[in-house]
Every structure is written in C-alpha cells, then in structure tokens.
C-alpha cells in the first residue's frame, strides 16, 4: 500500500476518535483492523494524527499482545494454550494446524493467507480446546476439525458459519442474585428514590464485597469515592477477566448485560459520576456489537443518558476494548490502559477512589460486583445478606473446568465446601484443585473440606480441577510461564523474577535440581512476592509456593541425589564462539 494511502486511512481512523490522545488504544485497534499490523510508518502517522510523540505511541502499542508489528496473513488463528486447553488436547490441535498449513505456530503461510499464533486464556476453558480466528471463537476443537477450518480460511471465507463457531452458554446453576430474573429499570427506579448516601448505606447493610477476589467492601469503596474531591467522578467496570480458567463474565455479559449496566448506573448515582466505562477484554470483542445494542436500547428506554427516568440524573457508558494484557485486570493498570497508555499498574497510594481515571476519583468494580449491587438496590441489603456465610455474603459465580463431567458456570452461595463443589460438577479421583486460578492456590485433597469464603479461600471465580493422573508440576510450570509472558516489565522483581522462577522450576522438573535448588526457589518466590509492585508479581510465585507447601512429595521425587549441579551449561555458553571459530572444544578436558 502506498504510504500516502496509509496516512489517509490513519488520519480517518484518528478522526473517528476525535484525534484524542486518550483514545490511542482505539485508534491503534482501528488502524490494526484496517492495515493488518502496526508498522514503524503507521506508528509515525498515528503520532502525527494524534499530536503525540512517536515514542509515546510505540510505548503503548508495543505493550499489547494483539497488536502485530510485522505483516501477518489475511487471517490469524490464535490458538489458546492455557492450562485447561492443553489438558483437553490443544497440543494436538496445534499440530493439526501446523500440518494443514505447512507452517509452524508463530509463522505465516507463504501465500499470506493464514498466520498461526498462541494466546493465553480466552475464557473458554469449559469448551476447550478453543481458538479465536479473526476474533471469532471456535470451540471444542479436535484435530479432525482443522483441515476444514484451514480450507475455509484459504478460500477467504468467514469462519462464523462453521459448526465450531459456537460458544455454549454452559450456565449450569442459576442463583437468585446474579442470574435471577430481571426487570430492566427496577433497580434504577429504586435507586433514584434514595439519596446517594442512603444507597451506599444499603450496600453496607448487604455486606457486599468485591467479587474480583480482593473482597473489599463495596460500600466503603463507593463511600471513599463519593467523598473524594475531584472535578468529575467515574465508574469503571472491570470486564477484563484474564485469570486462566475464568469465564463467568463471558456468561454474565451474554446472559444479563442489563443487570450489569443497571449496576454501573446505580454506582454512578451513588458516587456522583456522570460517566462510566466498561473495559472489555480484547478476547471478548465478539460480544461488543450485542453489548452496544443493549446500551442503545437502554438509552431509548430512558435508563441511560441525560435525565434518566426524568429524575434529572445524567449517566452514560462507553465500552473500551482492551488490547490483550492480563495485567490490565489490575485496576490501576486498567485505568492506565483506559487513558490510552501501556497497562502498567500504578503505585498506591493514591488509590483509584482518590485519583483514578484522569486523576479523578474512580470506582473500579468487577462485573459480578456491579450485578450484585443492582440486585441489592432492587431487593434490599437485608435480602442479600441472608445468602452466604459468615463475613462472605451472597453468592459467587464460579467458572469450573478441568477434569470434571460438567464444566461450566455455577452460581453458588458462599460457604460451600470444595468437596461439595467437586460433587456438584461430577469430579472424582481428584488430585488437586487450582482455586482462584494460577494467582490463587493449589489445594490437595486434605483441604477439600475448606469453604468458599473471602477470609479463607478468596477467589475471582476460577476453579481448575486436576485428576489423579495429571503431572501437576508440569501445569505449575505452564502457569509460571504464563506469568513471565504477562509481567508488564515495569518493576524489576516481577520482570526478572518471574523468568528466574520458571528457570528454577524447570531445572527441578528436568531432574537436575538438588535440595539447595529447592530452597533457593522458595526464597526467590518469597522475594518476588514481597517486592513486586502489583498483584501480578505478588502472586506469580503462588503456583510454585502453594504446591511446595501442599505437595512437597512431588518435588522431592524429582530431586537429584547430587549435592550440587550447576545451572551453567558450558557447551551452550561456548556455542556461538565455536560456530565463529569453527572449532569444537574438548569439554571433558582435564585441568593441568
């Protein structure tokens, strides 16, 4: 394409977003969709169109997984290689793609028809193996499906008519709170009859805590945000569920978007915001059109926009699609991304409720929390707090996958034991439960009497079940590898430490680890946990540390009897020099 033509396209895209630097992520997405990748020239033209320095554009776009910097094929297959996907045969599917296309994963076919790439969890662990092909999800893939998919792509046809292009809802247990029946507007009508302070009091009565996993009381968050001084207040809904093995937001966004938008509106009224953002993970872009339709319908019904229900309250919602970065599920990283920057978390304090989006007071809430909030306004705080257990009130939507008969989304009351959970989904001969995803903990059968409870087993909702025949530590290795790929790189202990954790674990799994390596790995894990800037680094060692704690025998069985085995590989270190000189050293040579 001629350079001038590129420049015109980029200028048009920038114009669509008002040439606002804060919309850099949208502009980059738009340009990527039109031109297929973001070249050095494109970076320059985007910078020019938005009045930004090019290094600032590069700083942002180079951060996100789904922005290709080199030309790609007309179609891209992003095969998911998350742990559950690999348990269910993603490796065989990858091989089938390589055979059908004749290129390796990470490459593009010579006719520029198809590129193959891996991607982290795309929220389909309940119907794995899965892939995103040109943004369209394909599920329950088998190697036998692949030739047909490749043929379709080679012909330049749309994959959305393929039988695999089907996302099952898999909502296997509806509770009364998130997945109960819904009357759009009911919560808003009740909310507007209350003062914001009365509304927050109702949240306090309900004892609702944040469903992202941290469990901070929602009433406190809203109260802090409401009283914080600022020129404007904002509501942000975190729909960036990236924790491997989680997919409950996928179901909520499909099943009850009205309840969620109602929750955001109610939150806006409570904290004094006129604007809300739904930050939708890039992997869920296929839901965007439908969500926009729901928003439009709500505006038509007077439930969104100016003068809502004629009560003088203004509030509207914009959906921001991400670019592919797990760390953006961290609230301050999400805000940075929303401002059109790389998703590097911020240091706290100040907290987002004090200085969030554009340095203004911002309440960032999980999708499910906002659904609960709408329901609380509709039915009352006391009604809500009758569900649940001790200091964990209400229900939790769990994403359960792995070795069980009925993977899917289950809305259960807090207080449920892990054993009851296993019985509910048809899981037998269970070796371990990865509770809360890789950032959570790996639990052995002697812990299956523990309960779903913020003060013991807090979770965002990812539950992965490992059967007794699984090589558990291999999956811990894959989890650790995931963190190395998703570390944002801002802070040293996480950027470097995650890779060192991976190498340390690999040394043990290869059989060349000693007792001292195990001790060193434990110490390293503690350092990464204590010194990292955000939750990603602070939890990245959890797969290793919690299996060391709960499955010590698995490690001991892999240790070498030797006292010390160096990690330094002499032959490898000399490889380059040998190639240059054309000589091979005698590595066994005795010293004089």
């Amino acid at each position, binding site marked *: 394409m001629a350079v001038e033509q590129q420049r015109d396209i980029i200028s048009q895209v920038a114009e669509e977003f008002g040439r606002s630097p804060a919309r850099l992520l949208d502009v980059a997405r738009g340009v990527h969709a039109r031109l297929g990748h973001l070249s*050095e020239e494109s970076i320059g033209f985007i910078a020019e169109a938005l009045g930004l320095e090019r290094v600032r554009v590069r700083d942002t776009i180079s951060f996100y997984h789904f922005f290709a910097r080199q030309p790609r094929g007309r179609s891209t297959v992003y095969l998911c290689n998350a742990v559950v996907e690999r348990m269910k045969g993603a490796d065989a599917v990858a091989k089938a793609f390589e055979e059908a296309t004749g290129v390796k994963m990470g490459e593009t076919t010579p006719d520029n028809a198809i590129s193959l790439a891996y991607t982290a969890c795309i929220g389909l662990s309940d119907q794995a193996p899965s892939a995103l092909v040109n943004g369209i999800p394909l599920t329950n893939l088998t190697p036998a499906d692949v030739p047909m998919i490749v043929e379709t792509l080679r012909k330049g046809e749309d994959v959305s008519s393929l039988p695999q292009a089907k996302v099952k809802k898999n909502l296997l247990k509806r509770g009364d709170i998130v997945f109960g029946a819904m009357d759009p507007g009911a919560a808003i009508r009740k909310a507007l009859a209350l003062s914001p302070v009365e509304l927050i009091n109702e949240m306090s009565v309900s004892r609702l805590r944040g469903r992202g996993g941290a469990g901070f009381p929602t009433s406190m968050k809203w109260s802090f945000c409401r009283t914080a001084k600022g020129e404007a207040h904002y509501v942000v809904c975190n729909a960036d569920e990236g924790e491997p093995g989680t997919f409950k937001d996928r179901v909520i966004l499909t099943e009850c978007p009205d309840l969620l938008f109602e929750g955001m509106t109610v939150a806006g009224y409570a904290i004094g915001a006129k604007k809300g953002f739904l930050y939708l993970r890039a992997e869920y872009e296929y839901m965007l059109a439908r969500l926009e339709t729901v928003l439009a319908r709500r505006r038509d019904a007077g439930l969104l926009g100016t003068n809502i229900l004629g009560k003088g309250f203004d509030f509207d919602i914009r959906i921001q699609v991400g670019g592919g970065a797990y760390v953006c599920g961290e609230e301050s990283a999400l805000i940075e991304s929303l401002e059109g920057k790389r998703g590097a978390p911020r240091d706290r304090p100040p907290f987002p409720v004090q200085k969030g989006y554009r340095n203004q007071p911002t309440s960032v809430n999980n999708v499910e929390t906002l659904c609960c909030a709408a329901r609380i306004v509709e039915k009352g705080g006391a009604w809500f707090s009758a569900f649940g257990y001790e200091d964990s009130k209400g229900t939790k939507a769990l994403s359960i996958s792995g070795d069980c008969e009925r993977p899917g989304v289950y809305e259960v009351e807090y207080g449920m034991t892990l054993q009851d959970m296993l019985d509910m989904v048809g899981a037998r001969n269970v070796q371990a439960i990865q509770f809360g995803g890789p950032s959570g903990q790996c639990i052995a059968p002697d812990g299956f009497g523990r309960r779903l409870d913020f003060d013991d087993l807090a979770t965002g909702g990812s539950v992965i079940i490992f059967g007794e025949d699984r090589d558990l530590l291999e999956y811990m290795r894959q989890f650790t590898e995931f963190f190395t790929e998703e570390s944002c790189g801002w802070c040293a202990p996480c950027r470097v430490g995650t890779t060192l954790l991976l190498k340390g674990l690999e040394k043990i799994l290869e059989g060349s680890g000693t007792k001292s390596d195990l001790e060193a790995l434990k110490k390293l894990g503690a350092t990464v946990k204590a010194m990292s*800037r955000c939750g990603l680094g602070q939890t990245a060692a959890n797969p290793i540390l919690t299996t060391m704690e709960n499955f010590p025998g698995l490690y001991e069985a892999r240790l070498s009897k030797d006292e010390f085995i160096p990690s330094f590989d002499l032959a490898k270190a000399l490889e380059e020099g040998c190639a240059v000189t054309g000589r091979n050293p005698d590595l066994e040579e005795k010293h004089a």
Partner: protein
Amino acid sequence: MSNEKMTILIDGVAVEATEGQTILQAAADAGIYIPRLCNHKDLLPGGHCRICTVKINGRPGSSCTFPVADGLVIENDTDELNAMRRAIVEMLFVEGNHYCPSCEASGNCELQALGYRLGMINPEYPYQEPKNEIDATHDDVYIDRDRCVLCGRCARASVQLDGKRVFGFDGRGLGTRIAVNSPDGLGGTNLSVDDRAATICPTGCLRVKGQGPDIPVGQRAYDSTPIGSDIERKQTVKQAT
C-alpha cells in the same frame, strides 16, 4: 500544600516528617539511607526497581512513592529486607550484560555500588545473556542496552527536566527495552548532550561519547565510602543501638 509536621518511626527511631514528603525523602532528611536505584532526587518517583521497599506498618511498600502519615511504623535496615534488596540487584545483574571491569561507569555506577553495599558476592541466578543493540547514531551520546536496568530515569528526566520526550519503553516483560523518539535511533531525536537526561543514567547504559574512565581508581564516587554515605553524614537523629 500545608507544612504539617508529623512523626514516623523508622527502625524504632522517631523521625520528623512533613506532609507531602515520601517515606524515602523524610528518611533522607533525617540522615537515614534507604537503598534505592531508580529514584533520583530531581525526578518524580517511578517505582521501577523496588529496592527501596520497606515494611510500612508490617506490609511491604516502596518508600519512594509512599507518602508519610503520622505514626507510620517503618522497618528499613533489616536482614530480611536487605537480603531481598540484594536479590533484586542480583536480578538486574543477570538480566543484562554488565561487565564492570571494563565499564566506564565502574566506581561511579549506582548498581555496582548497591551490589557492594548490600553485600553481593556473585549473582546466585543464571545469567540471561540477552542480545541487545547498541545505538551509536547520536553525535554525543550512545545507548548500550546491555547495561540498562530499565529504571526509566532518562525517560522521566527528558519529560520532567528537559521538556522533551526523547525516551520511552518498548515491549513488555523481560522483553522491555528503552526506546527513543525516532525510527532512526538516538541520532534522529532532539536529545542534546546538555540535557539532564543525557547524564542521569545510574549505570553505564546511557553514556556521553568520548569519555573514558578518566578519574583514577581510588577517587571515584563509591571507591572509599559506600553509596548512601552522603545521606548518612547528614544524620540528625541518634540511631538506636
């Protein structure tokens, strides 16, 4: 901003602080050194290196970003924290390719000096030996990314002190690299050798060309006293013994 005075406790010593200060600043004013690398007194904190992590009311946090509040109880000079700080310095050594003996920054290098101060003998971790590009396109300044610790000082200084934006980041995770505001390398940017950004690098990554190790060994910044001694000389409070 008000100048309200408050008291914080650092390792059991009462330290007077002023509202608006960070823990690191208040400690420095009192002559207490908290090890740090990416921090620079003329720049807003970046929170990159985490070496200045202290325990704040029992929880780890970076002292360069954490604002003082009356009654905060801080742990700083403890074996546990110093071991973890040393671990981070070791991580930075294995992340890049740092060849102290031949580096022009040796003796004046803050990374090297921290290694000495924190008692690093040799990194315990495997070297990553990354392949990095040297950018020598600028007439007066060059970038040797082998020696970069991604502290972001150059990027912050360019914006905050020079009113430019010469530097930024590229990529993420272990693949993060310092980037410049031109497709043609540093030479294509408006960096001047007189910019603060040109000489604010704590290591030997961003160097002015044509300057060898002209100060003899023995007279360099950290040859006779460890890094942080300048702060400790100001000590106004008596350390608990």
